[in-house]
């Protein structure tokens, strides 16, 4: 189980290969990659700045991955989340999960992403032609996370 927060970009192929290297039990690898869109809420986005809370963010992500591990029969999981200034089409986040079969890997990957959106301390600020603006939390993200549980406080 690995969690990384970094400024640098990541190489999906290399990360996926490393995640399942040497583990012949793996029969499924599920991946999610989040990327920067050039439009949000009808406004052009030129730069997306991502900020986190050093110390808490790492702990929150590790707790989410541990929770996934306890719920599904998965072998390993990787979360990489970038911070700093990103441009449209840049990669933001990678979640990768290995398991014997696809069902567990898909479910755990989606769970980790849904919880990350609502519980991991990251914040997005957009630069637009009309000036900068902080991205507001979406109720649809709360709904997505809520599907998995009725307990636990969101952040």
């Amino acid at each position, binding site marked *: 189980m690995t969690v990384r927060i970094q400024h640098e970009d990541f190489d999906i192929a290399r990360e996926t290969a490393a995640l399942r290297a040497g583990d012949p039990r793996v029969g499924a690898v599920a991946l999610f990659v989040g990327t920067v869109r050039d439009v949000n809420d009808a406004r052009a986005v030129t730069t997306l700045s991502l900020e986190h809370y050093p110390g808490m963010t790492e702990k929150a992500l590790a707790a989410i991955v541990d929770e996934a591990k306890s719920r599904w029969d998965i072998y390993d999981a990787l979360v990489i989340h970038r911070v700093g200034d990103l441009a449209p089409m840049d990669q933001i986040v990678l979640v990768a999960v290995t398991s014997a079969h696809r069902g567990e890997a898909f479910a755990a990957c989606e769970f980790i992403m849904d919880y990350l959106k609502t519980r991991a301390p990251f914040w*997005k600020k957009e630069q637009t032609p009309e000036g900068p603006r902080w991205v507001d939390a979406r109720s649809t993200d709360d709904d997505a996370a809520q599907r998995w549980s009725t307990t636990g406080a969101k952040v």
Partner: protein
Amino acid sequence: MQGPRTVQLVYLARLRESFGTSGERYELGGQIHTVADLLHALAGRGGAWSIELAPGRAFRVAVNHEVASPDTRVAPGDEIAVFPPVTGG
């Protein structure tokens, strides 16, 4: 030097900009025992503090990197963060 009843406050993202600082050392008055007590005291500064920390405003608090509620106890040496709802991913 850290005082006998000092905590570290951390402000993040939009709230850091509103408050004009990323954090401060804060002396807990004798009447501050919970997150709610602390927020009340900070809101009492007026200006952006009273606006952002008003009841019904969307913000979160973490004590020592754990999500906190209004009745969470605060103690000297704690790191207490105040931040907007999260928007990562």
